[in-house]
C-alpha cells in the first residue's frame, strides 16, 4: 500500500521541525493550565474518601501516569510500525523519543502504586498480574532504549526497535484486563466501566483533567525531544545548516 505523496511531504523532517515549533508553546500552556486546575481540584475540591481517607489523592497522579504508560507505548509501537512499513523518518523519530517519556511514566505508575499500596494493602509490592505486567512494560521500554542505543545505523536501529515495540503490544491488553482475568489486590476499573463510573464526580473531574494534562505534557515534551534529535539525524541537510547558523546569532 502506497501513501499519497502529500503524507510524505507533510511528514518531511524540515516540515516537522517547523510545524512542531509552532505547536510546542500551545501544548505547553495547555499543560501548565490544566495541571494547576487539576491539582487544585484534586487537593482542595475533591472530597475525602470514606474508606481510604486522604491517601486516595495519590490516584490523581498514579492513574493518569499508568494510562500514559500504555498510551505512549501504543504511540511508540504504531509510529514504529509506520516507520517500518512506509519508511517515514519522522515516524521512526517519534518512536525513539517517546520511549524515555513512556519509561518515566511507567516508573511513576509503579512507584506511586507502591506508595499507595503500602497504607492500603499493607505491602509495597505483590507479584500479581497487574503489577507484574506493568513491570514488564517498564522492561519493554528499557529494552527498546537499550536496543536502539546498541545499533549504530539509525535505520537498522529504528527497524529493530519497531519490531520489539510491536511484539510487546501483546502486553497492553494483559495490563488492562489483568484485574478481571486474575484475582488481585489491585482494584478494578472505576472510570471505564460501561454502565456508570463508580466514582464521585468531584473525584472524576480532577482525575480526567490530570489525564488531559499528562497528555499535553507528553505532546510538549515529545516534540521538544524530537526537535533536538531531528537536527542530529538530519545534520547533513541544508535546512539544518541554516537553522544552526540562525541559532548561532
Amino acid at each position, binding site marked *: 500500500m502506497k501513501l499519497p505523496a502529500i503524507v510524505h511531504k507533510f511528514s518531511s523532517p524540515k516540515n516537522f521541525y517547523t510545524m512542531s515549533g509552532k505547536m510546542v508553546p500551545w501544548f505547553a500552556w495547555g499543560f501548565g493550565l490544566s495541571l494547576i486546575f487539576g491539582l487544585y481540584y484534586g487537593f482542595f475540591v475533591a472530597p475525602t474518601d470514606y474508606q481510604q481517607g486522604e491517601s486516595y489523592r495519590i490516584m490523581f497522579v498514579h492513574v493518569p501516569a499508568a494510562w500514559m504508560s500504555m498510551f505512549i507505548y501504543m504511540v511508540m509501537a504504531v509510529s514504529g510500525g509506520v516507520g517500518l512499513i512506509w519508511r517515514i523518518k519522522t515516524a521512526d523519530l517519534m518512536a525513539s523519543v517517546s520511549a524515555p517519556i513512556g519509561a518515566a511514566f511507567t516508573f511513576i505508575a509503579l512507584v506511586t502504586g507502591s506508595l499507595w499500596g503500602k*497504607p492500603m494493602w499493607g505491602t509495597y509490592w505483590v507479584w500479581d498480574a497487574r503489577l507484574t505486567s506493568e513491570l514488564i512494560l517498564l522492561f519493554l521500554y528499557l529494552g527498546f532504549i537499550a536496543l536502539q542505543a546498541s545499533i549504530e545505523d539509525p535505520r537498522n536501529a529504528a527497524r529493530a526497535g519497531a519490531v520489539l515495540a510491536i511484539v510487546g503490544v501483546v502486553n497492553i491488553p494483559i495490563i488492562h484486563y489483568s484485574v478481571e482475568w486474575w484475582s488481585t489486590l489491585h482494584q478494578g476499573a472505576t472510570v471505564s466501566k460501561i454502565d456508570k463510573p463508580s466514582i464521585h464526580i468531584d473525584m472524576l473531574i480532577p482525575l480526567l483533567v490530570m489525564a488531559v494534562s499528562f497528555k499535553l505534557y507528553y505532546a510538549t515534551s515529545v516534540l*521538544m525531544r524530537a526537535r533536538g534529535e531531528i*537536527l542530529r539525524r538530519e545534520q547533513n541537510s541544508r535546512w539544518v545548516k541554516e537553522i544552526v547558523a540562525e541559532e548561532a546569532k
Partner: protein
Amino acid sequence: MSASEFFDMGGYAFYVWSSYGLATVLLGWVFISPIFNKKSIIKELRMKYRQQERQQQDSTDS
C-alpha cells in the same frame, strides 16, 4: 482546613507527598533535559560545520 492539616494528609503525608515529589522530579527532568540536549546538538553541529568549511578551504587553497 489549616495548612498543617493539609500537609499531614490525614496521616498519609509520607505516601502522598513522596508520590507527588517523585512525579515532579522525574517529569521535570524529562521535560527540561531536551532543552539542554538541543543546545548541545546545535553547538556540536556548529563546530562540525566550521571544521568542514575549513577543510574545504584547505583543499581549494592547495
